[in-house]
């Protein structure tokens, strides 16, 4: 139960952080009328922007929640749960940032979600095999 709470909180903070960052980077870039050459100016503006720091703080919190989850459970459990992140991010971008998300893009997003679940579920075997090899190494010594 605890692990689900950690993961749901992690997913929500992650997507919220991305919304803040996306919105603010757009603001900064449009205010600067950014051209290809002034990348350093963009970075400088970014570093002193409070909303960017807020978004970054949210991403750090989600990162800490995920590594805590990974120390409690296998990646093969955590990754399929976290894979919903891609759907949450697109939904947040649609709702909070008013990005035009076409039907095709939604279908693509759901395919990615399903694909990552499959990748995540198949991880278990790899981990087990690696653990066996490590045990073998120890015995070998």
């Amino acid at each position: 139960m605890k692990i689900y709470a950690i993961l749901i909180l992690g997913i929500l903070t992650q997507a919220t952080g991305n919304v803040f960052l996306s919105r603010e980077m757009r603001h900064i870039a449009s205010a600067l009328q950014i051209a290809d050459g002034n990348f350093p100016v963009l970075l400088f503006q970014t570093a002193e922007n409070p909303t960017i720091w807020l978004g970054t703080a949210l991403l750090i919190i989600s990162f800490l929640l995920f590594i805590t989850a990974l120390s409690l459970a296998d990646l093969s459990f955590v990754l399929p749960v976290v894979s919903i992140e891609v759907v949450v991010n697109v939904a947040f971008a649609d709702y909070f940032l008013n990005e035009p998300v076409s039907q095709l893009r939604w279908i693509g997003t759901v395919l990615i979600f399903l694909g990552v679940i499959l990748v995540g579920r198949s991880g278990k075997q790899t981990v087990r095999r690696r653990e066996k090899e490590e045990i073998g190494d120890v015995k070998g010594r």
Partner: protein
Amino acid sequence: MKTAIMIAIIVLADSAGDVLLTRGMKQVGEVSTIKLRELVIIGRKVLSNGNFLTAIFFIVVTFFSFLTVLSWADLSFVFPATSLVYVMGTLGAKFILKETITLQRWVGILLVCLGVALISFP
């Protein structure tokens, strides 16, 4: 094109960061306490771990590339596109680490590739 290059940088740096972070945290071990003194000891172990520190470097590169691309591209495209990191991870496991990849995982990365192809349309 500019967006595609940024996505490629993000995916490569993210994959490198993931591998190193996993290795580093495995060396440190399970975080099963909330006692401050023990957390400080674990924190010190983490901060002196070479794999962990190199992972942080790649994570920083990933983050700044992500911020930069967001200044002109849609989050609803950029974020799903970064899922290509799973494809990279699988190809790396197959061709660099010579791991056996299950059929289920091949189907998974095929779905991710199809998905990314679909989101690339406006």
